[in-house]
């Protein structure tokens, strides 16, 4: 019906891919946007430097949750170096819908969490 909520976005929101948690993840990171309440956790299982398995969990708006689902599909099987090289534009292009400045943080929360996991962070450096 709209540019923002195109079918593939709603599909990822209502049927998220790679949803859940891993039992013994090699990497795990969680973060939220406190102002809107979006929350994303990402667990990684590594095989060498490659992402053998990935799960995300969380709650929030359709944009944040669909973006996380799409991101997990983008990076499964990729190397940590490739993940570290991902930019905001890569994910926004994959989303393929116009993201207004107000929704940018929603769209990019999962990428922020994934990159923190790729760098092996347990929490944000203060």
């Amino acid at each position, binding site marked *: *019906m*709209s540019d*923002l909520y195109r079918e593939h976005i709603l599909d990822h929101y209502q049927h998220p891919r790679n949803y859940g948690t891993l039992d013994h993840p090699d990497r795990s990171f969680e973060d939220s946007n406190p102002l809107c309440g979006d929350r994303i956790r990402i667990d990684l299982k590594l095989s060498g430097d490659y992402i053998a398995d990935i799960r995300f969990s969380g709650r*929030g*708006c359709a944009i944040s949750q669909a973006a996380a689902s799409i991101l997990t599909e983008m990076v499964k099987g990729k190397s940590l170096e490739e993940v570290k090289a991902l930019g905001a534009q890569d994910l926004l292009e994959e989303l393929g819908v116009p993201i207004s400045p107000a929704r940018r943080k929603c769209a990019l929360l999962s990428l922020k969490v994934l990159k923190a996991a790729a760098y092996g962070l347990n929490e944000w450096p203060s």
Partner: protein
Amino acid sequence: MSTRVGTQPLDVHRIRTDFPILQRTVRDGKPLVYLDSAATSQKPASVIEALAGFYQTSNANIHRGIYELSEEASILYEEARAKVARFIGAARPEEVIFVRNTTEAINLVARTWGTANLQAGDVVVTTILEHHSNIVPWHQLAAERGIMVRFVDIDEAGRLRLDQLEGHLRTGSVKLVAVTHVSNALGTINPVSEIARLAHEAGALVLVDGAQSVPHLPVDVRRLGADFLAFSGHKMLGPFGIGVLWARYELLASLPPFLGGGGMIRTVTTEGFTPGDVPARLEAGTPSVADAVALGAAIDYLEPIGMAAIRQHEVALLAYALPRLEEIPGIRLYGPVGEDRSGVISFTLGDVHPHDVAAVLDLHGIAVRAGHHCTQPLMRRLGVVATTRASFYLYNWEADVDRLVEALHNARRVFGVAG
């Protein structure tokens, strides 16, 4: 409630023609349905013209300019003060202090009255319904001076627990009760006169946040019983950048200065200064003269229509909207139902995030607010991260409600919300 029976219904059709922005379209040609007046109201042409007119014909800095333009600007500024005073039933114009907005008015009280009168161990009672602007200034004083901030909870309907207020007051440590007249998130109209009576019996002063009441209901400070009243011009058809703090003259005169600078002094020497009289004492620096004048024009617009009639109109819109919204499967409405409810409707739709609901409404040309409404403690109390909020004013009508309901049915289908 001060709503009178028998007020003339508003001629909304005529009123709407006074607001130029309501003629525009949004999102590829859709007529604008503006349901965010609790955030800021739209402005009638007369207010916009007053603002532009001041700059076009009367612009000069006020006070002590010994020339015609400055005298004219000074007169217009003081006339605006007198209009505000009359509008809220103040005893004299000097009881009206012009500030930027409600937030600044409350901070002014915290920084002047608060620092002069509050010591470690003193209690400020506020409520879980408050906007952050009536919480954070008290938290700041708690951090700096060791005062304590206590909260009055709500019941399940969203009404204040006056029994808790009485419990706080019985401790004898309460120096101030800071309460909103109308909740910006739930629309609850609090019994502020009753609260003021209880507070005064316990020796506490009362600050009322009138940001959501002065634009929408008849508010008369002689009946309100409050010691301080704070409100914003931009929510009552006026421009941004002008707000009001009202207090009785004797109380204002007892306050130490707020900001230091030009206009607020009697004399300045290399050794120090002596402050001037109120209101100038609390209005350091060049004020927003044009904005004050335009606020006066907003009052000129509201007064002939009548605040009782505006209140009646919003009551009728609420009565039209609530049953139609209730019929939407998966919707949850917040706030009390009854006479103590303003034209504010907060809701959630299934477990769809309120930002998504608002984004779909926006595609229909409907402007609502979604988020925590600067009431994070209340959101936590309600167990939600956010709500979507539609709010009414005198230019809204049933057609706006119909568009909202239709768009919400659509949002429900988009996100697959079950009943």
